[in-house]
């Protein structure tokens, strides 16, 4: 596209960037499914609003004329053949409304559309008053895993004109253990995982502004950055995200739009760190958080943009030039650091990098300043071609983390060197397998990408990046996300890969966790602030990983045993040990002043088969054993393809 403007003082050059801001009021029914007949209309109402709404629009449904009718409906849980939300207990429908013509009546219904019938929870006619009023209707659901089909909330108007605003369907009960706007099942899943960091980056936010990000949910506008049509989804808010981090005890890692201005950045710092007397501190207080968020968290990670190098995927929200982006980071983060509310120890200002191209990161760093970290996403196992045996699949899969992280030719090793020379640190904004293409058939793909072997691989990768590269902030991608498309480069068949979600669902039809989740959960039971050097000797078996057609992985001397020891500086000790043999149990012993001794709890993740998954049943599980008199010199056998965690008090 071409943008025209008045001639600036300096002539534009190829390679310059232009940021376009627009506001599109109206179209209130975006995101809703609508129908009208007989001349009924759906329009935006800007002036006749409820005194309690935080927003600037309402929906006006005009259908009072003879033969006129209109419906507006909202659906959720619409994934074909699966359910990710089973409704249990009491729920309430709330909305604001006002009758402005005709009978002032609106038909309210809420139902689950099953394959053969509808599960109707609410179906009634509501007569509205002629003034704005809040309406609440309760119902009870008892879905036990078999209610598969989209759920639908609908307002139907015929012979009336009404104003509608601020609609919700929520569980009635709010427990003290979950004061957030997130579902109980989501919060419970995160509490079990016990993550050190939570990251939120949303494509629905890339065209947003700081003011919109911190707005209340019912006032938050849809935000676009590219494409030919309007966006329908509203991003989660920063306040809600910070509430979630606080509740689960994790540091927040938040991506702000790449086009954020220096002034916006200063406003954000004030929002997070200013007291209630400041303009943006007052906005925070109005949302219910009086104390600065910087007093809640040890550090808040803020990244400018997301994957600026990935212009092809994120056009319109990417400054796809490492020098230009580096300059922009210097300007925007420089503004942050000039804020009177900025405290260096409270923030980690992150410049986005490119894991696969260390050169790109070096260019960014050389052209920038004012950043604290450079982020990378070192995904693994992009292609799955050789599926001739379990060894062909899992030999290279298990070798790849060490090849990337611990060997001088590895891309992550090189990124680490660039960071070290630039006196900065790396953070991992996303990591997982990324098996999205190859010649594997569906069944083999499932048994690889969602297997216990995959879970071990990702956890090993993350721990190697702590041990060998000093990367202490890392985030698995992601919590939800049932499947993605897989391109079969041989047959062209439409396949799906069981990535990137680490859970099947949370409170849906299965409530199952994938092995990637379980491996991180188990690792988090052992990770303590200080990593101690753990030195392997004796058998210390290795294998020669020949060149594979899966990601061109090759490594001589790949280690079967990988170990990671931790201390809390007081009495707690732990050690995580992987056995990456695909076939053979390996015995280990321990020595040293911090070797496990006495009463030791042993947690372990493995399964009967390396290809086992939890896609349909709870096959892969963490087991826990208490050993009352652990002897470090006595051989302990690690099963093949296993992760074992020893925790004890020194």
């Amino acid at each position: 596209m071409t943008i025209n403007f008045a001639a600036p003082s300096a002539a534009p050059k190829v390679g310059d960037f232009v940021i376009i801001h627009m506001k599109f009021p109206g179209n209130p029914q975006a995101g809703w499914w609508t129908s009208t007949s007989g001349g009924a209309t759906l329009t935006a109402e800007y002036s006749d609003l409820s005194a309690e709404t935080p927003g600037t629009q309402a929906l006006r449904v005009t259908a009072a004329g003879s033969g006129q009718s209109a419906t507006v409906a909202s659906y959720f849980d619409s994934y074909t053949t699966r359910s990710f939300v089973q409704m249990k207990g009491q729920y309430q429908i709330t909305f604001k409304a006002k009758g402005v013509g005709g009978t002032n009546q609106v038909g309210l219904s809420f139902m689950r559309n099953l394959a053969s019938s509808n599960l109707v929870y609410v179906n009634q006619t509501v007569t509205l008053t002629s003034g704005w009023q809040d309406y609440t209707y309760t119902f009870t659901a008892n879905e036990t895993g078999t209610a598969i089909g989209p759920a639908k909330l609908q307002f139907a108007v015929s012979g009336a004109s009404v104003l509608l605003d601020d609609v919700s369907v929520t569980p009635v009960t709010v427990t003290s253990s979950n004061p957030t706007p997130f579902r109980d099942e989501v919060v419970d899943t995160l509490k079990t995982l016990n993550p050190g960091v939570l990251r939120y980056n949303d494509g629905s936010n890339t065209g947003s502004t700081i003011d919109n990000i911190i707005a209340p949910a019912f006032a938050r506008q849809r935000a676009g950055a590219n494409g030919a049509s309007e966006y329908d989804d509203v991003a989660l808010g920063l306040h809600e995200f910070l509430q979630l981090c606080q509740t689960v005890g994790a540091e927040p890692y938040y991506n702000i739009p790449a086009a954020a201005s220096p002034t916006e950045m200063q406003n954000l710092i004030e929002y997070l760190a200013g007291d209630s007397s400041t303009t943006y501190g007052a906005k925070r207080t109005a949302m219910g958080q009086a104390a600065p968020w910087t007093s809640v968290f040890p550090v808040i990670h803020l990244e400018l943009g997301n994957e600026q190098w990935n212009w092809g995927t994120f056009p319109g929200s990417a400054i796809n030039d490492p020098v230009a982006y580096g300059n922009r980071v210097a300007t925007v983060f420089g503004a942050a650091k000039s804020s009177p509310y900025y405290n260096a120890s409270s923030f980690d200002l992150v410049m986005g990098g490119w894991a696969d191209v260390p050169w790109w990161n070096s260019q960014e760093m050389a052209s920038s300043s004012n950043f604290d970290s450079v982020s990378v996403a070192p995904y693994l196992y992009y292609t799955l071609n050789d599926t001739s045996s379990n060894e062909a699949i899992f030999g290279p899969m298990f070798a790849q983390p060490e090849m990337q992280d611990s060997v001088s030719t590895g891309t992550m090793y090189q990124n680490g060197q660039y960071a070290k020379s630039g006196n900065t640190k790396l953070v991992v904004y996303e990591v997982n397998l990324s098996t999205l293409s190859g010649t594997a058939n569906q069944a083999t793909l499932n048994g690889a990408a969602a297997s216990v072997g995959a879970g071990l691989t990702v956890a090993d990768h993350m721990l190697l990046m702590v041990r060998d590269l000093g990367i202490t902030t890392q985030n698995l991608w992601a919590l939800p996300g049932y499947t993605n498309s897989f391109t079969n480069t041989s047959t062209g068949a439409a396949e799906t890969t069981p990535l990137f979600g680490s859970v099947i669902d949370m409170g849906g039809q299965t409530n199952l966790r994938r092995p990637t989740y379980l491996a991180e959960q188990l690792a988090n039971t052992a990770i303590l602030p200080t990593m101690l050097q753990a030195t392997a000797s004796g058998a210390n078996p290795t294998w020669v990983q020949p060149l594979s057609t899966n990601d061109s992985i090759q490594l001589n001397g790949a280690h079967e045993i990988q170990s990671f020891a931790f201390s809390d500086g007081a009495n707690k000790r732990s050690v995580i040990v992987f056995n990456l043999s695909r076939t053979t149990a390996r015995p280990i012993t321990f020595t040293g002043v911090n070797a496990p001794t006495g009463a030791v709890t042993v947690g372990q993740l493995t399964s009967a088969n390396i290809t086992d998954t939890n896609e349909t049943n709870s096959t892969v599980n963490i087991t826990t054993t208490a050993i009352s008199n652990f002897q470090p010199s006595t051989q302990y056998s690690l099963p093949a393809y296993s992760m074992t965690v020893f925790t004890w008090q020194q």
Partner: protein
Amino acid sequence: MVNAGAPAITWATPAAITYGTALSSTQLNASSTTAGTFTYSPAAGAVLSAGTQKLTATFTPTDKTQSTQTASVTLVINKATPTITWPTPAPISLGTLLSVLQLNATASVPGTFLYNPLLGVSLSAGTNPLSVTFTPTDTANYNTATASVTITVTGGTTGSATNIDIGTTVSQSGVKRLGMNIAGQAFYDSSQMLRNLVFRNPGFEGEIWQSILKCTAVTTTSCTDAHSVVSMAGELRPGGDLRVHLWWREGHDRYSDLEHRGVG
């Protein structure tokens, strides 16, 4: 929940119970300010299936001039976790294959056991973990359960082991637990994150737009971004606004709000 009309019935939603727990006065505890008798459905002693169940109380006032009243509450019944009993097996000598003498866990309810390692496997010398996953037949009312024990394999030599020495040398400090990306919500996706299940524009609000263009061709008054999907969201509606910020890579921001002359 209280039905309209007197006498009023008070009945708080009872705390969740675990499957197998019989209904008792802990749950069936409706009260009224008026004298009378309560009957419940299901009655005390009933064992209900896991899930959310409806309890109903019928109150018959002593004063026959008053009408019979009913009230109901919901009771959440969590699945029970079977108890697995698995005695620590006696030590076996190197070369002994695992058998039912070692893989002999029992459970409090019917179901199937999946052991790891499997029956017939030969273990290495030293302490070996054994684990089992138990899947109950009645999955509607019982959770999957796991258990583990260790078994000592005697004989052999220790020379084949890998020794891990953990001393006092600090490898890394400031280590934190591994993190997680949450995701936003998108229609047809699997990520229903929020309590409010109406997540698409619940406030009927408008849209804002912010797009970054990279100039692949320029004139003194224009910038062209060749990417086909960097385009506008449509015509500006009344009340809309468009601002253009130019940002030159040679220096710092040289923002200026410039007149919009057209978008093509």
